[in-house]
């Protein structure tokens, strides 16, 4: 057997152990990415092989926590894919405005930049106080960061450009206070967002949502797990609700697609039909 194949077996066993002991199920994640991350984690750890790590991993929760941080990668941006946010503003918000109150679920929100972007957009469109956002992630460390609403100031230039490209016309600097190298997002953006842990691989639905966003999370999943997530979103969404996926994720070729209409081609904004 080649060394690579031995490592693949070790990874399977490790993920199996993690699931049995800690209840976190990574067995249905696409192999290539998870292998890459695990290998990085191993290289930075004190262990030579995954088999060697296994013993402590299954007994010492802190070792597991470090692994968890290593395998859930949390890169995100404010107004990532400006064209997508532009379409939200122009084509989705007009529908949302017809409701007295809307509920929105951001699944896999990472450090919250996407939810904060949405809050900015909704407030600018006159929906302040008329929405609640549930922003969830599997990784509690990033959720804590998300709740603090603090972003590195160097990132802010890029985010400002994204915001402007997405059709934002206010002064972006009004949304945060600069403190040394950090930007602290204004509390008006935070007050209608609830950050909470939720694992798409094992946890249940969030009821009665007008909108569900899950962008760049399912690309890491195998088809079976992807299917589970989509079913979860479908049952969480009210008729007429909106489903937003990442730019490289689509409903194409899925049975569920029959119940959805694609609103902005290429931007992965779908609307659930009424019947």
């Amino acid at each position, binding site marked *: 057997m*080649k060394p*690579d194949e031995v490592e*693949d077996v070790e990874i399977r066993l490790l993920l199996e152990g993690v699931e049995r002991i800690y209840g976190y199920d990574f067995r249905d994640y*696409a*192999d*290539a*990415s998870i*292998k*890459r*991350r695990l290998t990085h984690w191993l290289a930075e750890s004190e262990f030579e092989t995954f088999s060697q790590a296994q013993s402590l991993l299954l007994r010492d929760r802190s070792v597991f926590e470090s692994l968890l941080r290593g395998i859930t*990668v949390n*890169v995100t941006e404010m107004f990532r*894919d*400006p*064209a997508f946010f532009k379409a939200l503003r122009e084509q989705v918000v007009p529908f949302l405005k017809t409701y007295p109150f809307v509920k929105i679920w951001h699944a896999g929100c990472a450090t919250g930049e996407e939810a904060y972007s949405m809050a900015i957009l909704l407030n600018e469109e006159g929906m302040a106080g008329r929405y609640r956002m549930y922003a969830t992630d599997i990784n509690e460390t990033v959720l804590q960061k998300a709740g603090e609403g603090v972003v590195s100031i160097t990132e802010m230039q890029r985010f400002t450009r994204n915001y402007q490209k997405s059709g934002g016309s206010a002064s972006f600097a009004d949304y945060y206070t600069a403190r040394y190298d950090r930007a602290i997002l204004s509390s008006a953006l935070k007050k209608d967002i609830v950050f909470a842990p939720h694992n798409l691989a094992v946890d249940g639905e969030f009821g009665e949502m007008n909108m569900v966003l899950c962008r*760049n999370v399912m*690309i*890491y999943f*195998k*088809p079976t797990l992807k299917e589970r997530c989509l079913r979860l979103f479908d049952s969480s969404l009210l008729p007429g609700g909106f489903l937003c996926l*990442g*730019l*490289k*994720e*689509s409903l194409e070729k899925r049975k569920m697609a029959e119940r959805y209409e694609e609103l902005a081609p290429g931007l992965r904004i779908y609307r659930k039909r009424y019947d």
Partner: protein
Amino acid sequence: MTRVFQAVVIGVSTGGVHALQKLLGQLPADFALPVLIVQHMRPDAGSGLAKLLDKCCALRVKEADELDEILPGTVYLAPPNYHLLVEREGFLSLSADPYVSFARPSADVLFESAAAVFGPNLIGVVLTGANFDGSLGLKTIKQNGGVAIVQDPADAEARQMPQAAIAATGVDYVVALDGMAALLQKLAPRRTTMPHDMRGRDA
């Protein structure tokens, strides 16, 4: 044991549009291997390049989508702002992980994941570019027994990337762009002798 190559991976940056047009333009429609490409581009570049290349060459060129099955004679271009990876079952996956070697998509990411799946049956190619991406990945390809081809730095619009690759590992062929398609055809199996069925259980 004679090996039978299963895929070509290409990493290219500055000057890539021109280089790819030329290289892919010279490959015949019955070229028997899948070709996976990372061309560095801006995160918001759109999918114009795949369309452009598709028009100018005999092979089918498409922007890679998640779960695309890796088919012979098809060229898959990494989408802007995503890494492109190879899955064991013979299909592609994408990731939004952080930049690697200052790039997303990164050739290192593609090369390393392809090397893990194809082992010695992989051809890695580094073309023109003004950075270092691809050299670590090419080294991994060599470590797994694959073949490394690098564009002659003197022939490249930007020589840094080929030079870095040559410095990183024992390269098998250093060739000018003009000779590259002929070399790939020589290495590739004839269509009729394609031995493997890459389709796995889950594909």
